[in-house]
């Protein structure tokens, strides 16, 4: 794209020297009255305007029969038609259109070039579908930033009027115009690259970080205007993007651009993971957890370092395992490789085209300078002429000078056209950027799928491990519960024994009442009673100790139960994460497939359009070369004819 901008400068440069040459008056008769014209011509060369001579424009040229375009064509046709390539009218228009602007202002030519470029692109899109969008960027206006900036007047920006004419039904109208600034275009490009991953989206003009002073220079603004128009026109030529909501909104909605300026910066930075669920990122705890599970022995010590190493090695593993995964689409890979070769050749060709254009421009310029030198010499000889031979020579020189200047002009025009045609190479080079980004969309989508897959497998292994661990714990619990149960059973048995003993004691007490009189039995009864009481007391103490043990056991086991519950919760969370990740994975796989499909479609489209574009480039280039070479040949042939007397004279 730099090439294009350079050409912008070159063109500007060309125009200045072009005017210079146009302002020279070449074809008056060589008598006294023409001197003033010569002098004015000379003064324009030296750029020192004589105060009396008005600023020189090529007005006088109008009534010059040689330079006026229509008569030129008349002159040309009878001479050349028999040996010239007889173009169909459409080619003739393309090739000779610049002549219409010959006497117009400098911009006229440039505009016509743009128009034809545009119409070419549009005609291509028109041939692929009936709908057309014609976009013009015009009328740049400097505006003040409304933000509460501390420095007043510090923030100005330029808005451009973007006018759209279309017959696409989706637009629901035929003509719109909105004001947009460059930032809006950046937003549009960002939104498009997000929504249309895998498409070959025409690359946006460069941001060109420049100082604000430069920013508002006329030529910078103009350059950017041209670049924006080209960009938007290319977007509108894309079969899918031209129907996009984003473009429609950009072109139609008045006032502030409603598209969001930025999405989450973090997610955009992790480009491959744009569509990942948030909980997988930015929460180191969940990531660290498996590490702790896997490597408990190292726990705590230099955790961060270990973590980083782990991540790195994982990344390395991916790097190593990437080729086998990518290889999956053989056809795609072949095409990609072919495209890489193509790109290399394209960049080479584009470079050579640039130097060819440069060489053509140089030869034209030098031819012009030679012409100017001879014009000066003609003027000099005419002024100083003492002998007839000098006048004859001056007349010859004038012929040569005229032819040289004309040839120079033809070279220049031819070059402008050549630039136009060979620009296709540049455009394709620019498009290769889009192809690259589409491919990187694809590979980043693939990376996302891979990330999610490995994430999933690690999550699953974590869940398994946790389940195994908790099942072990459950085993331990069960034995503990069994112990509690046993204890409880013991308590129950002991309590039975106790109640039995209490019952025996009561029964003995009753019997004692019955047999009160029986003194003999008293002693033994007393001893029985005391021994039964002892039994009761023993049983009671035993019971209380058993109860305290049961309580302790219950507390202990309830603690264990609580731990289990949290572990189970964790497992469930993990399962949820796995589910979400799986959703993300299938989403990512879908995205990947979609991008793959887009890639394929775009590759096909690219091939189709490339064929068309390249053919029209070649044709345009060749026809242009033929046209101008014929003109130059004609000019020189005339001079050769006029000077042929000399060779006859000398032989």
């Amino acid at each position, binding site marked *: 794209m730099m090439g294009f901008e350079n050409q912008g400068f070159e063109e500007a440069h060309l125009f200045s020297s072009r005017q210079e040459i146009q302002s020279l008056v070449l074809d008056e008769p060589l008598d006294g009255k023409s001197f003033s014209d010569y002098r004015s011509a000379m003064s324009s060369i030296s750029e020192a305007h004589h105060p009396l001579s008005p600023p020189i424009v090529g007005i006088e040229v109008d009534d010059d029969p040689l330079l006026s375009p229509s008569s030129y064509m008349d002159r040309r046709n009878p001479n050349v038609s028999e040996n010239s*390539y007889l173009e169909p009218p459409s080619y003739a228009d393309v090739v000779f259109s610049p002549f219409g602007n010959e006497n117009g202002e400098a911009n006229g030519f440039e505009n016509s070039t743009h128009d034809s470029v545009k119409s070419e692109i549009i005609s291509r899109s028109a041939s692929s579908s009936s709908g057309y969008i014609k976009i013009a960027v015009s009328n740049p206006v400097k505006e003040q930033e409304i933000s509460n900036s501390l420095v007043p007047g510090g923030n100005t920006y330029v808005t451009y009027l973007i006018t759209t004419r279309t017959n696409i039904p989706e637009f629901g109208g035929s003509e719109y115009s909105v004001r947009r600034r460059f930032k809006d275009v950046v937003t549009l490009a960002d939104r498009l690259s997000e929504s249309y991953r895998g498409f070959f989206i025409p690359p946006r003009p460069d941001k060109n970080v420049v100082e604000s002073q430069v920013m508002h220079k006329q030529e910078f603004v103009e350059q950017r205007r041209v670049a924006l128009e080209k960009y938007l026109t290319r977007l509108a030529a894309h079969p899918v993007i031209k129907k996009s909501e984003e473009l429609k909104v950009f072109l139609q909605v008045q006032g502030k651009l409603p598209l969001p300026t930025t999405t989450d910066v973090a997610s955009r930075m992790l480009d491959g993971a744009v569509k990942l669920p948030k909980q997988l990122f930015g929460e180191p705890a969940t990531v660290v957890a498996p590490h702790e599970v896997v490597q408990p022995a190292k726990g705590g010590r230099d955790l961060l370092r270990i973590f980083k190493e782990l991540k790195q090695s994982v990344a390395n593993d991916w790097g190593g395992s990437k080729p086998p995964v990518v290889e999956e689409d053989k056809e795609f890979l072949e095409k990609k490789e*072919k495209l890489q070769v*193509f790109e290399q*050749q*394209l960049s*080479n*060709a584009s*470079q*050579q*085209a640039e*130097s*060819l254009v440069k*060489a*053509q421009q*140089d030869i034209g310029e*030098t*031819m012009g*300078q*030679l012409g100017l*030198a001879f014009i*000066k010499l003609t003027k*000099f000889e005419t002024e*100083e002429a*003492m*002998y007839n*031979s*000098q006048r*004859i*020579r001056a007349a*010859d020189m004038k012929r*040569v000078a005229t*032819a040289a200047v004309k*040839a120079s002009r033809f070279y220049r025009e031819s070059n402008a056209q050549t630039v136009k045609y060979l620009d296709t190479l540049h455009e394709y080079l620019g498009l290769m950027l889009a192809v690259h980004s589409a491919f990187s969309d694809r590979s980043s989508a693939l990376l996302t799928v891979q990330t999610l897959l490995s994430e999933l497998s690690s999550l699953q292994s974590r869940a398994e491990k946790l389940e195994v661990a908790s099942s072990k714990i459950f085993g331990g619990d069960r034995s503990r519960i069994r112990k509690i149960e046993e204890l409880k059973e013991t308590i129950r048995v002991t309590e039975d024994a106790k109640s039995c003993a209490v019952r025996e004691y009561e029964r003995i007490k009753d019997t004692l009442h019955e047999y009160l009189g029986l003194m003999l039995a008293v002693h033994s009864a007393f001893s029985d009673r005391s021994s039964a009481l002892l039994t009761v007391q023993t049983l009671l103490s035993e019971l209380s100790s058993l109860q305290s043990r049961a309580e302790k056991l219950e507390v202990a086991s309830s603690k264990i139960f609580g731990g289990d519950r949290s572990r189970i919760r964790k497992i469930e969370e993990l399962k949820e994460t796995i589910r979400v990740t799986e959703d993300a994975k299938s989403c990512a796989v879908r995205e990947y497939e979609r991008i793959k499909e887009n890639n394929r479609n775009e590759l096909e489209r690219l091939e189709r359009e490339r*064929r*068309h574009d*390249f*053919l029209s480039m*070649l*044709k345009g*280039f*060749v*026809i242009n*070369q*033929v046209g101008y*070479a*014929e003109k*130059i*040949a004609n*000019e*020189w*042939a*005339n001079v*050769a004819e006029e*000077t042929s*007397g*000399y*060779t006859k*004279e*000398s*032989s």
Partner: protein
Amino acid sequence: MATITTQRSLSGSSQSPRSPSAQPFLGITVTDPVKLGNGVQAYISYRVITKTNFPEYQGPEKIVIRRYSDFVWLRDRLFEKYKGIFIPPLPEKSAVEKFRFSSEFIEMRRQALDIFLNRIASHPELRQSEDLRTFLQVDEETMERARSQETGIFKKKPADLMQIFKDVQSKVSDVVLGKEKPLEESSPEYEKLKHYTFELEDHLAEAQKHAFRLVKRHRELGQSLADFGKAIKLLGACEGNSLGKAFSELGSKSETLSIKLQKEAHHLLMKFEEPLKDYVRAVQSIKATMAERANAFKHQCELAETIKLKEINLDKLMLTRSDKVGEAEIEYRELKAEGEEATRRFETIVRLMSEEIVRFQEQKTLDIGIAFHELAKGQAQMANEIADAWRSLIPKLEACSART
């Protein structure tokens, strides 16, 4: 190169009248440059063929071998002997050592030397020159002796000669601009001529500079076309099908045209740039003659001054009737004769120059006319070839796009 040689010899014989038996003619051809010697000593020798019916010459045809410094010798001799005549210019020594033996430089110099000799041979005065006869006829040893026998400033090496030539030039400009000498001719007509000559040199130098650049541009465009052709061919190889073929054909055509451009660049150099350069040299030769004229004028004025003083002195002596009158009178008469001789010399220069200017203008109109014709012819031919080459591609491209 062969074609150029034949062309040159054709135009060389052009100076000779149509019926050689009836009218005197002198035709010279410089051919077959050969490199001799090694290293710093290396030089180029040329075969100089003379065909003539002049009775002063030994025979109708003579072939000698000469080197550049021999030509310089001839030029210097003529310059010394034919004051007031514009001696045809020699091509300059190669400024850049590495181009000295490039075939292009050698060929250009050969052509320029050929023109140099034929200009002398066609000049009504110079063609009678004894030095020319020597140059064209004596064997190599004699030539070398003559060259080394030269005394005075011309005994010096060619490199010094260039310096002297430059000194003369700067002296000329000093003289003409009136920096140094108060004694200067000031007829309006001669002033105009001086002004014309100096301006002309500037203008021509500028034109020649652009012409040389144009040659370079042709070469560069040729190179670019060749590179472009290669790149386009490679790009075509990526395409494979009929489009690829179209690409590679475009590439081949570019390469073909590149060769044509290189040829045209050579043609332009030989037939357009070199004549322009020759024109510049011719103007410089006029300036050298002007310096001689200024010297002669100065000499004449100084003598006139001295004579006047002597006359006053003589009158005084006559009044005092001194013994020295006789001696002084002889001295005065001698001086007077010398003064008359100086005046005659100066007047000869003036007369010759006014004739020479006319010759010069006519000659240059012819030369430049031919150069212009060659330029136009070459450019037209090249442009036509370009048009033809590209045009031949159009049907193929049409067929290719029709299939799409």
